[in-house]
């Protein structure tokens, strides 16, 4: 028979094995969120497609036609699509994860389970959205005859990078959100700000091209990958764009490092505050 010891002074010793034991709950919560997401709106699945299609259309007009940004040798809609999909994935995954503890407050105060499951499963819905919207990407690639090569297989890696970046931020913000209820106003701000700090409608190279002669241009260019989405978006474009694109691997390593730090410290903060969630939520 299983034996459990609860002590005030000691942290849960079986934390990670508990997390493994509750893996089914993780699947069920993800399944619930996906089910509800596609059931709730009448247009259901279509909504996951309409949103990126409209965004890509507008960005192509704004950045491609009006601002005449350079798309590094691939058709502009494909160029924008390869960035819009991971960016929207990151933005929704991060927001959902950050608000997840509050939305599931009732469960938290009535049932024990490793709290980490909540933000982790919240991210999965956005992943389903991403998978669905890959149809758009495929369609655009066929239409504009962009032939992918072997690099396409690296796409899941960059997706994973975006997922962990969203989780890392999500761990932080969801825990902070429980403690300071007005933290939720920060999240839309991060999304909005982050959009402009990510190369969705332009490429990172554009910074050097337009500001390279000044003092700030090269500095901004170098600091840019500290936004983990820079590595993700560059990687996405590289993976699907085929031959004409090159990838600055350094930017990917920097993004990977930042993401790792986000996850590690996010987890630490989450675990440190986790015990008090039920008391204050």
């Amino acid at each position, binding site marked *: *028979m299983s034996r*459990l010891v609860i*002590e*005030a002074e000691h942290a849960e010793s079986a934390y990670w094995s508990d997390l493994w034991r509750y893996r089914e709950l993780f699947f069920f919560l993800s*399944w619930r969120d996906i089910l509800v997401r596609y059931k709730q709106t009448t247009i259901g699945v279509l909504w996951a497609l309409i949103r990126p299609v409209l965004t890509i259309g507008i960005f192509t007009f704004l950045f491609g036609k009006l601002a005449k940004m350079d798309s590094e040798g691939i058709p502009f809609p494909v160029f924008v699509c390869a960035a819009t999909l991971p960016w929207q994935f990151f933005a929704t995954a991060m927001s959902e994860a950050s608000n997840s503890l509050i939305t599931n407050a009732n469960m938290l105060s*009535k049932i024990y389970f490793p709290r980490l499951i909540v933000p982790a499963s919240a991210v999965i819905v956005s992943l389903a959205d991403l998978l669905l919207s890959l149809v758009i990407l495929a369609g655009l690639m066929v239409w504009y005859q962009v032939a992918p090569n072997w690099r396409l297989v690296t796409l899941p890696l960059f997706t994973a990078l975006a997922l962990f970046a969203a989780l890392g931020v999500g761990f932080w913000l969801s825990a902070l959100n429980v403690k300071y*209820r007005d933290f939720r106003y920060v999240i839309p701000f991060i999304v909005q700000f982050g959009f402009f700090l990510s190369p969705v409608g332009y490429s990172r190279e554009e910074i050097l091209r337009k500001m390279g002669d000044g003092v700030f241009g090269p500095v901004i260019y170098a600091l840019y990958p500290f936004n983990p989405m820079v590595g993700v978006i560059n990687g996405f474009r590289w993976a699907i764009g085929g031959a004409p694109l090159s990838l600055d691997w350094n930017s990917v390593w920097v993004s990977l490092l930042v993401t790792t730090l986000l996850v590690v410290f996010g987890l630490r903060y989450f675990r440190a505050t986790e015990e008090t969630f039920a008391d204050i939520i």
Partner: protein
Amino acid sequence: MSAAIRVENISKKYILRHQTGGRSRYVSLRDVLARRAKALFQKNPADASREEFWALKDVSFEIKQGEAVGIIGRNGAGKSTLLKILSRITKPTRGRIEIEGRVASLLEVGTGFHPELTGRENIFLNGAILGMHRAEIKGKFDEIVAFAEVEKFLDTPVKHFSSGMYMRLAFAVAAHLEQEILIVDEVLAVGDAAFQKKCLGKMNDVSQSGRTILFVSHNMEAITRLCSRCLYLVKGELKLQGETREVIRAYSEHSKQLSGEIDLTPLPRRFEGNGAAQLLRLRSVQNRNTAAWCYEYGTPLEFAVEFSVSRTLEEPEIGYAIFSITGTELVSTTTYQECPLEQLLPGQYSMRITIPDLSLNPGTYVLALGIATSGRSADHILEATQIEILPSQLSIEKGLHKIWSPITPHTIFELNHI
């Protein structure tokens, strides 16, 4: 038999923060920053808004395997906190607990139910939340559906369920848990009389099958039937433990010594009133020999409410409502229904309220009070006190102990041969 649960000196401390407009458990970043900024300019940054509160103090007990134990006590005695600690939802501030076996805790029926999902989907979801494995749920699926009596509606979203169906389904999932230890909080009061009996029967089966049950309820009847032993909590301390009948006797004895006068000012408000009036005190008015807030069935319910008026109230209404312990509003009325008032000038008042014939069946209820002016709330307290309607000669003669509904109105039945 060996111990299933061994609790050693556990205590739980909460920090309450008093904010304008009631108590709140969470803070906003804005307030924290404002307080820090203020503290910079003050000499004594003593935080008067923080108050420590011990929900449990040095509680120790042991529960043997296969035992069914009841936990009783007034609201706020720490029963729910104790269950939350045993369920690992929250950690004790001090102390140590050893639990032998898997625990299923049922602090609420239907935790995690989603209105958009169908009955079938919710069974799986809720089962997983309660710690069942997929295979386990699959194996018990038909049993659960049969128990809940919802076969026809399995593929209907539960938002279309009646509240009775919803509760039955929720309880059915919980009733089929297989964990060795079951922790149950006041959840049996769901559904209609027949279903309540079914639930109690199921709990009985569970306890007969050798599993350990820890059971919180205000329903002394259910406790007596189910539990051989009882723990009695008073203000966070374990006052008594022992054989159920003895503990329940001590509980009702102790209730009699409760004060008949209640200070209403610190109690939480339902929503912010407009400040024109404030409820101050509630006094129990009794000339009989029962304890404060205990009324024998068939005797009038009497109490007095004291309140202050700071601005002239136009068309004031003073009223009360009585809730069941599970939060269902049973009866309510205000002065408007009996004797509409035109105006109340500023000052202090006492309103004596007498309910000659309440028809409320024996049990525990919650009294709510409110003052309104021109139809808008001035002050409103959801839980002013608990009141106890005690069984009397009359209620036994009427056979009210066999009725599950809270109200049995005086009714005239006329039979004619046609």
